[in-house]
Each structure stands twice: as C-alpha cells, then as structure tokens.
C-alpha cells in the first residue's frame, strides 16, 4: 500500500473515532440532567415521537442543547483553524483578533438597546460587528510593505481590549433589568431558548464550514507565506479576504447565539493537528468534530458540576482548556 493510502486509512480511523466520541458526548449529555429519564422515555421521544414530559425534556431541552454545543464548538474550532492559517500564527483565534469582541458589541447593541426580539438578526449584527472589528484590525496593522502577522495580532489585542471596555460600558448603561442576562450571556452560555437558537445558527455554521472546507487547499498554500503562495499560483488577497470574512461570520454568529466562549478556537485546532496533521482538508473536519465534542462535554460539566446552579460554559472551557493547551505545547515541544 502506498504511503498516501496508509495515511488516508489512518485519517478515516481518526475521523470515525472522533465521530463516535461526538455521538457518545451527545448521548451522554442528552441522558444527563436534573430529571432522570427512564429508557422508556428515550424510546417514547425518539422512536414514537411521544409528547409526555420526559419526551418533551429530551426533544425541546436536552437534545437541542447538545446540538447547539455541536454547532458552537465546531464553528469556533473551524474559525480558529482558519485564523491560525491566515495569520500563520498558532496563537491566533477569534478572541485575540478582536473579532469576538466586535461580535459581542454588535449583538449587544441589538439585544440591549433595540427591539425586544431580534434573535433572527442577531447573528447578522454580530457578524457585522465581527467584520468591522476584523477590518479595523486589518487596516490598523496594514503598512505599505503589507500586513505582518505580528502586527495583526498586536492590533487585535489592542482593539480587543478597547472593545472589552465598550462592552462593559454598554452593559453598565443598559436598562437595569437586562444586566444580569447580558453578563451571563457574555460569559458564554448555551442554556436558553435552545431549539430556536439551533435553527438560527445552523445555516451560518453549515455555510461557513463548507466555504472554509472548499478553501482548504488555499489555506495550505497560505502557510507558505504571501509571496510563495502567490508564486505557487494562489490569488492570495482573494483567498485571504474570503477566509477572513468566513471565519468572522462563523465566530460572529456563534457569539451572537451563545456569547463569549473562549479557548475552543485556540486549543482545539492544536489538538486536531496532533491527530491528523496540518493539511486543511483533514484538519478542518477533524477540528470541527473535536471542537463539537469538547464543547458538548464542557457544557455537560457546566450544568452538572455545581449543585447550586449552572456554571457558564465559557468558564469550563477555559478551566479545562488552559491545562490541556499547556500539555499539548509541552508534548510537541511548542511546535504544533
């Protein structure tokens, strides 16, 4: 068997393992909760389409919540992969670039100050916020000689800090009744109104992930650096713009629906790279599945760990993520 085929077979195995892990996480998450549901409840809900209380808990609370975790985790991880390729920097993620902050400002503007129920357009406004932040970071980092990844990250950190201040200002100045909800949302949460949020997010995540996957060869070439990618035949500016917009759309729509969930976009790409390597045709699907499983499990921990109530899932991802990230960095000698 040729090396290529061995690798493809190995990739298939990894993908199957990731899929099973994700399925397991979803099942576990659906089965776990304050109300214990007998096996009959599952049969009733999934096979007979029943409408007893257990079936309703499963179908309108737990399953949508797990699916939301899948979409959010997958989208954050994919967006992280894209930003890391774009900036050729393993530290890049939607947070460091100010993209998430911009999305939060966009979403908060609508949620706090405009109409009562704006949820269908929230992702769009968050995307506009994300794109505006991404664009200003890009323009600020730009020089006549081009855009260096280092400057981009520097500007991202500056713009991100500024946006964080804006977020705090907005929350402080918002109508009093809305403050606790807004704060909780900012810390990242998957708990409320899930079926509708899944429906809102699904098209954005599907389209965004599909576009990134179609760009994957271009992302490989971007790793060469701008001049070499250009000489190898890539329309560098176009691919970069498309990647930037798509990754911002993914991150922005996720922030709109579930607030600021950190660390997934940063660490999951590294974990996925350790499993399948850096070629984006393999990395993107692997990162999506790994991110999805990671977030579903994190959310399960968030809602079961503390007896006094739910933790924000963003706190769990950071608590679990930071040590895992350090472990990866040390194991790979800081290369991945």
């Amino acid at each position, binding site marked *: 068997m040729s090396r290529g085929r061995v690798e493809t077979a190995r990739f298939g195995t990894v993908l199957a393992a990731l899929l099973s892990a994700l399925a397991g996480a979803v099942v576990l998450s659906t089965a776990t909760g304050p109300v214990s549901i007998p096996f009959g409840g599952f049969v009733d809900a999934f096979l007979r389409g029943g409408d007893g209380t257990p079936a309703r808990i499963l179908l309108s609370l737990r399953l949508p919540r797990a699916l939301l975790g899948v979409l959010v985790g997958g989208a954050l991880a994919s967006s992280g992969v894209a930003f890391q390729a774009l900036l050729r920097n393993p530290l890049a993620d939607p947070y460091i670039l100010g993209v998430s902050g911009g999305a939060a400002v966009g979403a908060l503007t609508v949620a706090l100050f405009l109409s009562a129920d704006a949820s269908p357009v929230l992702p769009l406004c968050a995307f506009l916020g994300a794109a505006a932040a991404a664009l200003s970071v890009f323009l600020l980092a730009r020089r006549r000689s081009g855009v260096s990844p280092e400057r981009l990250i520097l500007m991202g950190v500056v713009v991100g800090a500024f946006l964080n201040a804006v977020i705090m200002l907005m929350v402080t100045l918002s109508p009093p009744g809305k403050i606790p909800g807004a704060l909780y949302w900012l810390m990242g949460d998957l708990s409320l109104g899930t079926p509708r949020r899944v429906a809102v997010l699904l098209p954005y995540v599907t389209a965004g992930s599909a576009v990134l996957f*179609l760009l994957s*060869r271009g992302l490989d*070439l971007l790793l060469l650096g701008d*001049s070499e990618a250009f*000489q190898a*035949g890539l329309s560098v500016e176009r691919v970069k713009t498309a990647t930037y917009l798509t990754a911002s759309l993914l991150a922005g729509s996720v922030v709109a629906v579930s607030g600021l969930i950190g660390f997934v976009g940063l660490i999951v790409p590294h974990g996925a790279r350790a499993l399948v390597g850096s070629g984006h045709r393999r990395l993107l699907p692997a990162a999506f599945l790994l991110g999805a499983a990671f977030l579903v499990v994190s959310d399960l921990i968030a809602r079961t760990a503390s007896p006094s109530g739910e933790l924000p899932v963003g706190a769990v991802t950071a608590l679990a993520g930071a040590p895992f990230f350090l472990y990866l960095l040390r194991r790979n000698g800081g290369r991945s």
Partner: protein
Amino acid sequence: MNPALTARKVEFRYGDRDILRGVDIDLFPGEVTVLLGPNGSGKSTLIKILSGVLSPRAGDVLLCGRPPRSFPRREMARLLSAVGQDPPVDFPMTVEAYVALGRFPHQGFFGGTTSEDREQVARALDLTELAALRGRALSEISAGERQRATVARAIAQGATVMLLDEPTAFLDIRHRVAFYEVVTRLAETCGVAALVASHDLSLCAEYGERIVLLSDGAVAAQGRPERVLTPENVRAAYGVEVACDRNPATGAIRVTPLRARPPGVET
C-alpha cells in the same frame, strides 16, 4: 528564439532608495542563466519583480509576451515557478506534502490529486534526492535538505520558466553539483528557461550558458562566462581581487580569490 521572459529597463525603489536602476534581462527556453551579484545588489528584488510579487516602478516585464500580472494566477504559475531565498523553517507538513503544494496550479481548489500529480511529485523528490525523507516533517530536516525541498516544489510545479533565488546557499558540494546538473537537464530535456541567483562563481561557469552580473542594482556585465568573469568585473562588483583562468580539467573559467596583502609588502 523568442525569450520566455524579458525585462526591459526595470526600476524599483524601496522608500526613496533606488534598488534596481534599469535592468534588462532575457531568459531563453533551454538555457540556464546565472544571476551573480554581491549581497544587496538586488538579485532577490529582481526575482520578485520577474515573478510578479513586486511591481516595478518603471520598465516592463513580459512573460511569453504578456505582463505577468495579466495572467490568471494559476495559468501564470503553470508558466513560471519561483523559489524564494528563505526556506520555510517551521512549515508544519511533511516534505512530500510540501512538495505536492507545487501541483496547485494544475489542481485548483477542488481538483483531486491525479496520478500525473503523484508522478511529478515523486520525480521532483528523486531529482533532489529527497525520496528517503519524504515522510519527515519539514521542520525536522537540515537546512540544506529543506532547501532541496523548495527546489523540488518548484520542479513539481512543472513550469517552463524557473526563478531560483540562491538555491545552493546551504548545500554541500555534492548537492551543489547535483543541483546544477538537474537544472541543466531540465533546460535541455524540457526546454526550461532557468534563472539561478548564486554565489558559486566557478561552479556556475561550468553550467551557466549565460551569466548576468548585477552590481548595485544595475547589470554590470552579461554574456558567456569568459566575458563576465574577468578580474576587472569581479573587482568592480565585489571589491575583491581574483585570478581568472581556465580550469585545465574542464576548460571552464575558474575564479580564485587572492589573499589580500597589506600594501607595500612585496611577494
């Protein structure tokens, strides 16, 4: 024969510093042209302009009769490949995957990997003696091996014009010779027009049909090795004293640096 690539009166500035001042160059199919010149003379800048990465301030570049930037990107990359001076140090892929990136102009975003792609990659790895290292990470091989991988990627690209920026800088003598053998063979068998920026004064005289000597952003001399590699030209460009004679074994020009002697000391 028509040149595959021409540049006329090319000028370029970084800021307000003149880097290239009216450079003319022609690359012909089947011919290896060696670009000599001291550090900072503008070799890399010229190669970036010829490959369309930089636009000249004045003058024209024509690839097969058209400005490089007028081609769709992939079409241009099928005609011209270029390798920069710095091999990517921590590129996160295997040697083989890296070399396979050279096939992008033939595949595009959505095309699969064909048997032709696989053959070209295997051939490029063979020509650069990298077949045994194909599964290794690019970050885990030596600088010279990495440099050969960049050349392999350009070969896999299969273009008729190849621009190579100091591709032998990190190579040992065996791989230096092998490199010149390979480009010469590509020129003879595939009609490749190659431009090789180099500091191998004597070795390139063995292989380069034509030498262009760049000095301070202008062509100081060009033509056959015996015309370009004279003590006067080398002194003017590099500021070193050399002796130029014929290598008795091959008949090619041989350039030998002479030891600087303190003034007034006779030998």
